[in-house]
Structure formats: structure tokens, C-alpha cells
């Protein structure tokens, strides 16, 4: 069977369920690179440009982990995943950067996904991908349907409160971690902001989610909010945010800030990320001005030590616990008084 490699990095965390269903239906075996480890990081650091951001460097590492094991690499050129928005310039040039810097790569499937205009659809994109493997139009049609079903199911689970890695783990059949209900029983609840490939990659985030869970805090992310909520929250921005991940993040942040049942908000960002350099500034300022929730910004890069992060995290959670104990003496949680 033809094997297609999918790097476990960047938008893997959003598209995996869909891609898996699609390729399986087409009759293609998919091979996902292993979870990020030290070796993958080091290979990535060596191959990518020094000035690139950590997530892109890691992508290089994951690609290298697949070389020799697959017949194709699936690196779609993601120009835009929704109307009038981009992800990031680096996604647009990703296949080209790989080709220019790595040798002996298997053929790359770099079909562009560009949904900026309404006349371009996800189905057309998938059709084109399907054509790489088969001429059977009926089969491709079935695969597209399977892809949509899988994605819909994924979104439903997220809105129920499951975290992205939990769903993906389940799909990969590595244990049935999922119980009847989503996490919803720990005494604290933290809103977690950040790009999916930062917060869900346990290596980059130094298992931030796991750590929070062990500190008895539930975690909710922007991905657990229905997209209508994000739209609603970002409608009043002075200018439409033209980066999809940032728009989602800002929408989630504004929602979190006015939420009454959250105990705090953590924003994880990676060093040298372009969009986040501006967006984290806005979110941090709004957190101070418009929200009474405890807020913490964590920036990671390849040199960040785990110890420092643990100390900050513990202090943050301790402060929240203290606050909770003394809640009655504090003024009521502030509402969002000013919005752009």
C-alpha cells in the first residue's frame, strides 16, 4: 500500500482527523511522525534557518523523521483556511523551504489550500489530492464525505470539552482515554491561549496541559469554543484580524476575559513568532485593562528550561487558589467594561 507521511507539527493538530479519514477511504496508508522528542528537535534546528520560529524548525525535524519511511510527504501549501484570512507567511512557503534545504525528500504533495475566496472550496482541494492516488471519482467522492464526517465529529467533541490531543490519541487507537463526559471535575478551570502546535505539543509546551491537570485544574482552549462564539467576539475589532489562528485566539481571549467560571488565563507563545508578537501585546493589554482574571504570558523557545516554567506555573496556580479562598473579600469579578 502507498504510504503517505504526515508530520506531527503545525496544523496537524487541526487537520489530522480529516486527513486520516480521507486517506484511509482512498486506500492509502498514513504514517505520522512520532511525538516530538529531543532528536526531532535537534534535527529540525540543524536543517531550518536559525531565524525561523520554533514551530517551523520542529516541522523540519518531523519531516526528516519521515524520510525513508514513506512514498509521499503530505505538505499542503496552506495559503488560507477561511475567507479573507491567512495563517502565516511561513505556511505559504513551507514546501519551498523544505525543498530548498533538505535533500533526498520523497515527492511532496504540496497542493495549495486557498479558501480566501468563496469560489474555492475544501472539496476541490481534497479532489485534487485524491487525484494523486486514484482516478476513481466515486472513490474520491466517498473519501471527501468521510473527511467531512470525521471533521464534524472532531468539532463536536471539541465543543463538548475534549482537548485536541485526547481526540487525536483516540483516533490513533492508543488506548481509550475518553470517558463518557469530558473533563469537568477538577476544582480549578484555566483558559489556555496559544497556537495549537504550541499548546498541544507536549514537548514544546513542556506538557503544560498535563501539568495543569496534575495541579487539579481543568483546561479549556479556544478550540473548545464554537466558531460562532469566536465570530461574535471578534466582530467588533477595529480591524479584521487577517491571521486565522490569531483571530481565534483573540476571540477566545475576549470570551475568557468575560467568563465567570474561569479562574485564570494562560497564554503560551513561542519566541520569534511574527503574528504573536503583535497579538500577544494586544491580549496582554486587554487582560490588564478589561479583566480581573489572573493572566500569565509564557514564552518558550528551544532553550527554555522546564524548571523556570514550573516555578512560574506553581506560583500562578498558588495565587489563584489563594484568591479563590479569599474570594468573598474581593470585589466581584470584573466584567469587560471597555471593548474596542
Amino acid at each position, binding site marked *: 500500500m502507498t504510504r503517505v507521511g504526515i508530520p506531527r507539527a503545525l496544523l496537524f493538530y487541526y487537520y489530522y482527523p480529516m486527513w486520516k479519514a480521507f486517506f484511509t477511504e482512498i486506500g492509502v496508508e498514513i504514517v505520522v511522525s512520532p511525538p516530538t522528542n529531543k532528536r526531532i528537535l535537534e534535527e529540525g534546528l540543524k536543517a531550518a534557518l536559525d531565524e*525561523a520560529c520554533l514551530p517551523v524548525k520542529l516541522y523540519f525535524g518531523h519531516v526528516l523523521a519521515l524520510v525513508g519511511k514513506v512514498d509521499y510527504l503530505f505538505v499542503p501549501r496552506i495559503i488560507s483556511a477561511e475567507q479573507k484570512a491567512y495563517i*502565516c*507567511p*511561513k505556511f505559504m512557503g513551507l514546501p*519551498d523551504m523544505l525543498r530548498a*534545504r533538505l535533500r533526498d525528500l520523497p515527492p511532496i504533495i504540496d497542493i495549495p489550500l486557498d479558501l480566501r475566496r468563496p469560489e474555492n472550496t475544501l472539496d476541490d482541494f481534497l479532489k485534487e489530492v485524491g487525484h494523486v492516488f486514484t482516478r476513481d471519482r466515486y472513490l474520491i467522492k466517498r473519501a471527501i464525505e468521510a473527511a467531512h464526517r470525521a471533521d464534524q465529529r472532531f468539532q463536536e467533541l471539541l465543543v463538548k470539552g475534549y482537548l485536541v490531543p485526547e481526540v487525536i490519541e483516540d483516533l490513533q487507537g492508543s488506548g481509550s482515554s475518553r470517558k463518557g463526559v469530558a473533563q469537568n471535575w477538577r476544582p480549578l478551570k484555566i483558559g489556555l491561549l496559544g497556537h495549537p502546535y504550541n499548546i498541544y505539543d507536549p514537548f514544546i509546551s513542556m506538557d503544560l496541559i498535563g501539568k495543569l491537570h496534575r495541579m487539579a485544574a481543568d483546561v479549556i482552549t479556544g478550540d473548545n469554543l464554537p466558531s460562532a462564539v469566536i465570530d461574535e467576539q471578534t466582530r467588533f475589532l477595529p480591524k479584521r484580524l487577517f491571521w486565522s489562528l490569531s483571530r481565534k485566539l483573540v476571540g477566545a481571549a475576549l470570551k475568557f476575559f468575560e467568563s465567570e467560571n474561569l479562574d485564570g488565563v494562560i497564554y503560551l507563545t513561542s519566541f520569534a513568532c*511574527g503574528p*504573536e*508578537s*503583535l497579538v500577544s501585546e494586544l491580549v496582554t493589554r486587554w487582560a490588564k485593562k478589561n479583566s480581573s482574571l489572573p493572566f500569565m504570558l509564557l514564552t518558550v523557545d528551544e532553550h527554555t528550561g522546564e524548571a523556570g516554567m514550573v516555578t512560574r506555573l506553581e506560583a500562578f496556580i498558588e495565587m489563584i487558589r489563594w484568591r479563590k479562598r479569599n474570594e468573598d473579600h474581593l470585589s466581584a469579578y470584573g466584567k469587560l467594561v471597555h471593548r474596542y
Partner: protein
Amino acid sequence: MKITYPHMGNLYIVIRALLESLGLELVLPPPTSRRTVELGVRHAPEFACFPFKLNLGNFIEAYELGADTILMAGGVGPCRFGYYAQVQREILEDLGYHMDMVVLEPPDTSWRELRDKIRYLIGRKSWWEVIKAIRFAWFKARAVDVVEEQVLYLRPRVQQTLELEKLYREALKKIDEAPDKKSLDRVVDHYLALMKGLPQKPGPFLRVGLVGEFFTVLEPFANYDIERRLGSLGVEVNRSIYLSAWINEHLFRGLLRVKGLEHTKELAAPYLKSFVGGHGRETVGSTVDYALQGYDGVIHVAPFTCMPEIVAHSILPAVSKDYGIPTLTLYLDEHSGEAGIVTRLEAFVDLMAARRERKLKGEAGKWIFT
């Protein structure tokens, strides 16, 4: 209404022509200086790009001089430039500096938006007057470009370099002051003649192409005066983008027929198949262009963390290898040390010189990139 705008090279001449012909009051920010950088760096996000910080410094300094309205360009992504104004306004507001911002950019919903913004600025002036003002400003931009191109050509050649710089400064001043198209043409002819009349050294000279992010290319303060430094090292610099080309591309959306970077898209295609925002694709394409024209090397400048240029830089080694043209990428921001830049430029010039010599002797050129 006292309007200010962010500095970018000699753009102030164009802006002044535009606003003053419309009878608007302009408060130029003081020339970008160490203090501008300090102000910008202090109040901007740490990892914002260098142009963002310089702009912010300009705004604060203009505010101190009484400006109350900011006029700037924008964009719709994916480069960060398109979201500068919104973040800068938030920062200025938090500092207690209340300034209006008028951002000229491709409208999101309808052209009405853009029209309303211009209306807001010009009040009751007629559109005909606006068109006349734009035309005049455009002529000034062209005049600046023609003079600059000549200066770039002459810098390695003339013997009295100080004299050339003096003429250059004078020419800019006279262009800035010229009240109409006729005197503008006279100024340009006059200074071109004076410059060309300076005694010259015999060649040949190394030729280098300057590519990269447009602000860094156009603003000597942001590029640590790279063109002059190269000139004094005996190198003729060819700049991939000029003011008028930038204005045409960003404000007129390519309506005018001046030499721009359109042709570089095709040249970039074998290496980069998509636009990546900013000038990323143009950087790759212009490098190919310079290689085809037999240049000795290409220097690529960009602000630290600039996304489109990082994509381009990732790809340049492949171009360098295929065409055998040396390239040097410099990321510039407030942390760049002048001494380091000078050393790297000197080394690069030596490398180009050695390569040219080898070529003359008929040896195949080795490809080198940094």
C-alpha cells in the same frame, strides 16, 4: 488637524508635496535618530519588527511637536504591516497620547471606506484638486528616484565623495522646495549634470543588488546606511525597489507603468511558488534577476523576525547555488552592532572581488552564501 506620518527614507518629500498642495498642515517627525529608536523600543512589543518600533518612535516625537493625526499605509496581510496601526494606536492611547489614525489601505468591504477616509482628510476640496496633488507628489517621488539612482552609480566612481554627498543633500532639499513641475525638472537636470561632472576613477567596479523588505531597503537609518558604506568600499549598488515603485504598488495598486517587481514573480517561481506576503517572493525573484544580469552578488536586508523575508532567506541558498551568485543576508534591528555589519560587508566585498578575479582567469565560480 495637524497631520504626521512615519518616516521612510525620503518619503517625507512626497508626503509634503501631497499634503501641502491640498492646503493641509503637516508636522514632520524629527529625522529618525537614536532617540526615536529608544522611544520606539521602550513602548513597542519586544518582538515587533524594527519598522514598527521606528514608526512608533516617529509618532511619539511628532506628538511632542503637536501632531494630532497620523496618516499611514496599511495592508490586508499576511505581513504584520497590515496590523501595525491598530497595535500602535492601542499603545499610544495607553500612553495618553490621543491621536487620530487614518490608514490608507485596500478597503475590506467597499471602496466607500477609502473614499470616506480621504474625504475626512481633505474636507471640502474637490477630487480634481486631489488628483492634481497626487500627480505633483508623484513627480517628486520620481525626481528623488532619478537622483538617488545616479548617486548609487557614482558613489564608487567619484574621487570627491564628500562633494557628491553634499550635492545629493542639496538636490533633495531643492526637490523638496520646488513649487511646480517645471522647477522640479530644472533642479533634477541641474544636479545630475553637476554630479556627473565630478572627476571619476577608472573602473571596473563590483556591482551588487540590494534586495529585501522595502522599509529596510528604503530607510538608511534602518539599514545602517548600507548603500553609502558599500559605495565607499568601491561597490556600485543597484536597488531592487525605489520609492515610486513602492508607492505605485502599495497606494495605486500597480496602476502606473513604472518598472516594478512584477517580472520577478516568474523568476522566483522555480523556487517559491506562492506569494508569501511583504516582498518575500520579490526577494527571491530579484536575486535571480541580478544573477542573470551578471551581478557580482546580492545583499538581502530584512528586519529581525520578518516572516516573508525568513521564507525568502530559507530559499536563497538554493538560488545562490544554481546561479553561482554569492548572497549575504543581514537581519537588522536595534540590537545590530555597527562594527559587526561593517565586518560582514567587508568580508562579502572581498569575496565578490576574489570571485570576479577567478572568473576573469576563467575558473568556474564557486557558489557561496551566508
